């Protein structure tokens, strides 16, 4: 699975939005804010905020290694474009995905159907937005793509030499999921 498509989409979104402020501040550099951008607490705070407000559940970060043992998994990707390029990636097994969609909609699901995929895409979208919103310069100079959602078995996500990567695992309701922020370009 490659991230180039969603990154291009995010760049296009940033351009299409006619964001004059973004154009004007392209001489800005986010490198001075890199410590703030890579602060793991920002990602934890974003996950807690999104899950508390939209699902009404508390999420706990899990520090140990977690394998998603279920055969089927769902991955949502939202690209970043602008002064930071990369992606926010959400990944979980079917159990967590179905629980999340159930909390969002008040409906019950037996499998990863289109509504579940839609809900997971939106969760990833809100996580990406909340995360970049923690750093004002990032919020103002970085656009988001629409979410892409992939489901299936036996696939891996590969990113070549990112500038930085945050990779966290979270638990809620006896289910777990992973959130990854990958930056492959920082101006």
């Amino acid at each position, binding site marked *: 699975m490659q991230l180039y498509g969603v990154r291009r989409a995010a760049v296009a*979104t940033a351009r299409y*939005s006619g964001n004059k402020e973004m154009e004007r501040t392209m001489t800005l550099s986010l490198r001075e804010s890199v410590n703030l951008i890579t602060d793991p607490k920002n990602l934890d705070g974003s996950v807690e905020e999104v899950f508390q407000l939209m699902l009404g559940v508390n999420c706990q970060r899990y520090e140990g290694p977690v394998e998603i043992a279920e055969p089927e998994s769902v991955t949502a990707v939202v690209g970043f474009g602008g002064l930071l390029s990369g992606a926010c990636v959400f990944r979980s097994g079917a159990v967590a995905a179905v629980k999340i969609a159930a909390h969002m*909609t008040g409906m019950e699901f037996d499998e990863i159907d289109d509504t579940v995929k*839609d809900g997971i*895409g*939106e969760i990833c*979208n809100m996580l990406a*937005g909340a995360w970049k919103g923690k750093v004002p310069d990032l919020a103002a100079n970085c656009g988001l793509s*629409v979410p892409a959602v992939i489901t299936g078995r036996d696939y891996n996500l590969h990113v070549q030499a990112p500038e930085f990567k945050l990779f966290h695992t979270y638990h809620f309701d006896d289910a777990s999921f992973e959130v990854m922020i990958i930056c492959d370009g920082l101006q």
Partner: protein
Amino acid sequence: MSEVRTLIVDDSSVMRKIVERSLRQAGLNPLVVFEAGSGVEGLELLKSQPVDLILSDINMPSMDGLEFLRQLRAQNLAPNVPVVMITTESSEEHVKQAILAGAQGYIRKPFTAEQVKERVLPLLTAA
């Protein structure tokens, strides 16, 4: 409160349901909801359905929420109907663009029903 006819524009059907639920929790009853999966669909729907309130996402494929809003104003569809943008984009510049395009309100995702109530009800009262 009399019937509130509301158009919700969002490419995510899940988000449309969440917005509808939040409006009901905010006390907008009776509520009649029209859903559109894109700005284009929203504009088409407004040609045949009068509404009292429009809530729109910004980041959507084919026609984004800001373009939807510009087209809405340019075509004089739903004049004087308050439009509230609901989006993950929350920088001052994004809010400014939405206001310039003709939005009366702005709600950042994730949101609570209380936030929806605070931002939407005054607009309906004013209208």
